[in-house]
């Protein structure tokens, strides 16, 4: 039954235009700085769909599942002809600096974009996705551990939120959802 469903999905056209409005009031504009120091908004400068996550590079909790999952989804989507940019907005700007973000995220995928900014700039992004960050405990070995949102958000190239993905999906399942919304890019 799953094989049939995959075949049907492969034959289907992208549902981007037909997708119903997201029932959750999330998403919005932001202006932050990527690991190269360049200003980056919610729009992808290369015109690719984006997989967005709020986390921090030093996170050994949900990020250690979500960031590798994002990398796997990006690779799986690429096989299907969909180029997706993985983006992480930091919830720990004190430790995720311009100097550290890039190398840390590159361990997961070379295309990873890490975003940080001023407290006010980051708050705009947090508010758009209703992200609240709280230090839940201090790990004497690795530093503060934060609770934060854990869903992955699929954005189109303009930064509009298409859907969300729980970080407990398998890479293939997540990639299929991504492909459903974005379709092969010519």
């Amino acid at each position, binding site marked *: *039954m*799953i094989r049939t*469903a*995959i075949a049907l*999905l492969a034959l*289907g056209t992208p*549902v981007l235009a*037909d*997708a*119903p*409005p*997201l*029932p*959750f009031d*999330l998403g919005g504009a932001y202006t932050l700085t990527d690991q190269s120091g360049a200003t980056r908004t919610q729009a992808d400068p290369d015109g690719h769909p984006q997989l967005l996550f709020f*986390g921090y590079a030093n*996170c*050994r*909790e*949900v*990020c*250690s*599942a979500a960031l*590798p*999952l994002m990398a*796997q989804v990006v690779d799986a989507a690429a096989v299907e002809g969909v180029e997706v940019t993985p983006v992480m907005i930091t919830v720990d700007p004190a430790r995720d600096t311009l100097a550290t973000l890039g190398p840390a995220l590159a361990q997961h995928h070379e295309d990873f974009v890490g975003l940080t900014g001023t407290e006010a700039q980051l708050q705009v992004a947090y508010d758009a*996705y*209703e*992200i*609240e960050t*709280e230090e*839940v*405990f201090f790990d004497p070995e690795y530093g503060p*551990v*934060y*609770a*934060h*949102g*854990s*869903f992955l958000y699929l954005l189109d190239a303009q930064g509009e939120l298409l*859907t969300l*993905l*729980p*970080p*407990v*999906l*398998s*890479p*293939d*399942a997540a990639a*299929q*959802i991504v492909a*459903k*919304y974005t379709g092969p890019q010519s």
Partner: protein
Amino acid sequence: MRQTVQAATLLAAALAAPASAAEGERIQITGEIIDTWCYFSGVMGGPDAVVGSAHHTCALWCSAGGIPVGLLGEDGEVYMVLKIEGDDENASGDTNLNLASHEITADGMLYKRDGLNYLVVEQVVTDHGITNLNHEDYGVVPGFAIPEPKP
């Protein structure tokens, strides 16, 4: 945590239907607040072991660390909890921590999208506490959820 998640049930569900149902459906549902990562990944044990009192400590760790919680309904379906009464954010939060492994009756809005169930809990009607005392069968799952004190 780094192992590949094989969420077969979610995969099948995600493939089953296109995005649908922008409007939510009000439902009242009874079930257990579960740790979705351990439940679907299977790496910490089978589905009967990664719920209830046996998995309570790990569920606390996972929830605090940002793993989204779900409500395992009496119908066997998992409802991803997007929000819950008392917490503003869409994952983790004190209410989710306090309700980890508890059997609750929730009233809220169900949204189906991409074959997945998303639940916005507007009211916890009844909190029955931890009713699945499966630690008597499984002990602590996983055992390392309660770390050894460092010398």
